[in-house]
């Protein structure tokens, strides 16, 4: 994987996006195993109904992991300097996550040429579930 050229990038440029498969109960079971988070809110429909909710919902960190994949499909992971997310809405079963990112700033940080990216994980209706930003060092 080659690191994108700093000089060739401009504020407003988009990085390659993707849309996930719809989040399913199986996705959440797999994420529970992979993450170690077996909270019943994500797995047990009887439990969530007893709490007055309509259905189980996705782990917030699943969406952040999708955005992590968006970054590591664009640059080698070692180029990521920081990565932060705000959780803004719940992701429900059946929603596909549209993961997009764009350059919002070009900067020098600790002597490295970097770009700041704004990343969004949204459903197909455009409702943002997670808003993130990342600083990536470029060649």
């Amino acid at each position, binding site marked *: 994987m080659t690191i994108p050229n700093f000089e060739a990038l401009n504020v407003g440029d988009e990085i390659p996006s993707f849309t996930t498969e719809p989040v399913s109960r199986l996705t959440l079971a797999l994420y529970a*195993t992979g993450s170690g988070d077996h909270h019943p809110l994500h797995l047990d429909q009887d439990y969530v109904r007893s709490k007055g909710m309509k259905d189980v919902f996705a782990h917030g960190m699943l969406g952040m992991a999708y955005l992590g994949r968006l970054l*590591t499909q664009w640059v080698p992971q*070692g180029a990521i300097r920081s990565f932060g997310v705000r959780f803004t809405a719940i992701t429900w079963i059946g929603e596909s996550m549209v993961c997009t990112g764009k350059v919002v700033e070009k900067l020098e940080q600790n002597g490295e040429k970097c770009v700041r990216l704004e990343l969004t994980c949204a459903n197909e209706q455009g409702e943002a579930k997670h808003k993130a930003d990342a600083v990536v060092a470029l060649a």
Partner: protein
Amino acid sequence: MLIDKKHIGMKVPPHAVTPTAWQLKWFAKATGETNPIYFDEAAASKAGLPGVLVPPTFFFCMDMDKDEPFDYIATMGCDFAKMLHGEQIFTYHKPVYSGDTLDFDGQVTDIYDKKNGALQFIVKDVKVSRQGEAVCDLRTVIVIRA
């Protein structure tokens, strides 16, 4: 009830985690990862890596990998049912791999509220190191609803 700010500075009991290729394989499957350096030991080895590469957000999973990951919230007298994960921030220093032993050392660094206490925020900062070398910092912001 507002959380007592005396808890700012509270140390979280440290713990150590050794990520396994087995768990990372399930994490990759769950997140749709197709690059084999994240789940296949042979592919990682062929790429010159000492183990399967730990992906960017897996540090959070390892931070939670202890008996009582929210003991610090309980100590503050907060109701778990009112707890939300508000923000998560990572700062990266070095890549880490399956088989590395990582030390997690955390502390509550801020407590503040908004909307006259309707939302309270607890900030926990964790330093992750491998044999004393810093590899990653985590900041977890937990929101407590009134």
